[in-house]
């Protein structure tokens, strides 16, 4: 499990066990890294658990931090809410070194939490968790009528899309005109 340095929980480091003399090779001690979200709460996560995230795995590969350096340089994910990052860290720890099951029933049921989780997981490039989340999002509209789907996923109507498109064109036109005027001013 993760240990939260400024948070509510902290895990005591396990006492190293003495290996029997007959053991072939001593176990390599696991390395840990630190991450924090928008709330600045730092989570201690093992490199093994972080392997789920292609983004973080890419960042820590060949970094060669000592425990102290890792602690002093937590990875900041300011675009992720603290509780969402906690969910991600928990999931990575639970599935560390294990084959991922075909379904995950522990994902949040609330729409907004799931929405934020999907964005975070996509950003952190955690492929399996993203698949579960997307399945869960897809399940939200099972057995629903198009109007109900529109409400759940907040899909704009054709009229709203057209209005937005017009607005975007208008804005782009204005910006282009502004740039032309500025360029003309510079030329003078």
């Amino acid at each position, binding site marked *: 499990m993760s240990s939260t340095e400024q948070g509510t929980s902290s895990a005591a480091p396990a006492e190293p066990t003495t290996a029997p003399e007959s053991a072939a090779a001593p176990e390599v001690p696991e390395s840990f890294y630190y991450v924090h979200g928008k709330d600045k709460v730092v989570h201690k996560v093992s490199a093994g658990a972080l392997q789920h995230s292609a983004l973080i795995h890419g960042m820590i590969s060949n970094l060669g931090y000592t425990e102290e350096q890792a602690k002093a340089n937590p990875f900041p994910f300011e675009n992720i809410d603290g509780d969402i990052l906690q969910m991600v860290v928990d999931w990575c720890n639970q599935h560390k070194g294990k084959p991922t099951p075909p379904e995950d029933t522990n994902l949040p049921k609330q729409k907004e939490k799931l929405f934020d989780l999907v*964005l975070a997981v996509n950003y952190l490039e955690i492929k399996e968790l*993203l698949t579960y989340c*997307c399945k869960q999002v897809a399940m*939200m*509209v099972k057995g*629903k*009528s198009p109007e109900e789907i529109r409400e759940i996923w*907040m*899909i*704009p109507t054709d009229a709203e899309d057209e209005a937005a498109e017009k607005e975007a064109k208008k804005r782009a036109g204005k910006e282009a005109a502004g740039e032309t005027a500025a360029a003309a001013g510079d030329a003078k």
Partner: protein
Amino acid sequence: MILSKYPYLVQREILHNMEISELLLLSFVSKNMKKLIKLSQMCRFSRISSVDYSSDPKGLTDVHIEFKHDYREHIMRIWEYEEADNDYFKLNVSGKIIDFRIHERYSYPVASFHSYDKVSVIKSIHNYFLDFFGDSIEYWWKAVGYKHVVPQLQNVSASAIIFDTDKDFPIRKFENFFFSSPVFKNIELFFLTKPEPLNPDSKFYQAESVDIDQHEHTVPAILRHFQGRQAFVRCHKCETLELKEFVDRWKSGESFRKLEYLEFNILHGRVNQNQLLNAIGAKHIDVTKTPPTHMLPKVFVSFGKKETTDPIISHTYVVRESDNRVASVLFERRTFSFGVWDKTEEEFLEMVQ
């Protein structure tokens, strides 16, 4: 939750986890959503081999998507409007407002029609499918029974399976079914009784392929009036004379111009092979040589059945007088096989080794 705020790859993954019936419903939400589905699911849709409408004798139509490699998904049901049901919602389907509800157990959409607008409802739905899935895949109407006419739909091949379960087989209804339906690609008939013969002008005989079981019927008229490409017949009795008549008419070029393959299995009658071959004026290939093998892809492949006709390897053949085309002829184990080659006699004999 705002779906449009997700990056494209996430949207694609979500849609990938939805069933086709759900994507279909989603496509009605907005034009942009329909575009997104078509764009992001292009690879999945390319694995669709056909859209099948299966209509049963009660008039209920189920729509399935058939994927390559035999996997199929139930995407819609088309059924009569039920007054008692209050869960209907309206959708504009290719310009027609249709009442839908969601199937309680399986969650696919159920489109409803009233008796007066059944055909227009089906046409609108079909036009929507043509746009949604594209017109490069096959569309089939598979009718079971003859009580409900097959609608005329763009790009749709029709097939029918008919059993004569009625004691007094209503031949007029049967005739009307073929008269009012489009020409069938395939018809399968299972007759235990002996129905009156069909009108020789019936569109039944224009079917591209027929597969007939006629236990009580001797000498089916198919040997006289068939205008299609492939016929598979299992029949109680048949005489040498009837088979000779058939071959003579083919040889003269007056009938069976499109015929590619006939397989005629005689369940109980006795036909003498030599007598038959003499009667039809069969020509012979030297027994020391190997004749070419006649085998064709079937016009219609029923689920679990072979995709090709049975091979004909025969030393006997006949030649059509009008264009010198050849047909291999084989009579073996009560089965008369007739395979037409798109080759002149000279070209055919060049294939003999």
